[in-house]
């Protein structure tokens, strides 16, 4: 399997994503500058976390109109796998590639902490290595991670089972206290209907080896690789 990590001005998790994908999971990975208009022959494109364009206008709003995004749209439409983490998730919702929007945390504070999330589906290329109900301990680091969708859109997301991860407590219970940012229905990550685009606020790449404090996120990279073995 081959992967590309897109680098926007202001991306700051691009090297972490590369490390987790290339060095730890063993996926042949390259960097891809946002001004490129073509995607090299890869199976997976990763949109990393950070503050693309300084979060000007809205988080992800300017990155959405970067030259590379047209190519990513075509890549995704033809079934290519896209993983957006944190700012990458915000770029995917701003692009309309995923439903909803990430608004300011309910607390109005930047949150940098470990959270627990529950795996809701394992019939996707991103989560095939997990069991449904698995509880993962991953870090979050964001100011705009509060998932919002109007009622009709939220109903559709739930009806079509697009929620892949929900914030939970250490036992997997979905509670108000375990929802760090006010996200509707405790949504931490969603996929598109075709199941090839995932956006998530927690950082699996920052929890991919024990020296980092958790390796619960490595399963996402391993799941992706396994699917192409």
């Amino acid at each position, binding site marked *: 399997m081959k992967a590309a990590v897109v680098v926007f001005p202001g991306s700051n998790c691009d090297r972490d994503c590369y490390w987790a994908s290339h060095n730890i999971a063993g996926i042949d990975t390259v960097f891809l500058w946002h001004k490129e208009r073509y995607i090299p022959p890869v199976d997976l494109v990763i949109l990393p976390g950070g503050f693309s364009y300084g979060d000007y*206008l*809205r988080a992800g*709003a300017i990155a959405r*109109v970067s030259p590379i995004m047209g190519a990513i749209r075509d890549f995704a439409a033809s079934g290519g796998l896209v993983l957006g983490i944190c700012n990458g998730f915000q770029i995917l919702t*701003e692009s309309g590639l995923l439903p*909803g*929007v990430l*608004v*300011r945390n*309910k*607390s*109005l504070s930047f949150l940098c902490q470990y959270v627990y999330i529950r795996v809701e589906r394992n019939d996707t290329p991103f989560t095939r290595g997990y069991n449904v109900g698995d509880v993962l301990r991953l870090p979050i680091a964001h100011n705009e991670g509060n998932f*919002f*969708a*109007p009622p009709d*859109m939220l109903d559709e997301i739930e009806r079509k089972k697009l929620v892949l991860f929900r914030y939970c407590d250490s036992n997997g219970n979905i509670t108000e206290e375990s929802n760090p940012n*006010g996200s509707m229905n405790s949504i931490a990550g969603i996929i598109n209907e075709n199941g090839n685009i995932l956006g998530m606020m927690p950082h699996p790449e920052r929890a991919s080896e024990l020296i980092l404090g958790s390796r619960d996120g490595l399963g996402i990279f391993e799941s992706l690789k396994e699917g192409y073995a």
Partner: protein
Amino acid sequence: MPEFTVKVYVRRKEGVLDPEGNTIAGAIASIGYKGISSVRTGKIFIIRLEAPSADSARKDMEKVADKLLSNPIIEDYTVTVEQV
């Protein structure tokens, strides 16, 4: 071509939570002004451009507001046009 100043006001839709507005409402009360029932926050974009007419300036900047300046899921906008 005549020059215009277009102002695009972007604000959260009714019913969309505005925690920043709520915090500011509390701060206004704390400096002694009572009776504030709500504060809604937003952004103004002041754009100068040349266009054949006020109508065409408005139409173009409405498209810009749709495509970039606002996120239609959570925000509404209004546009005003003045000739410079």
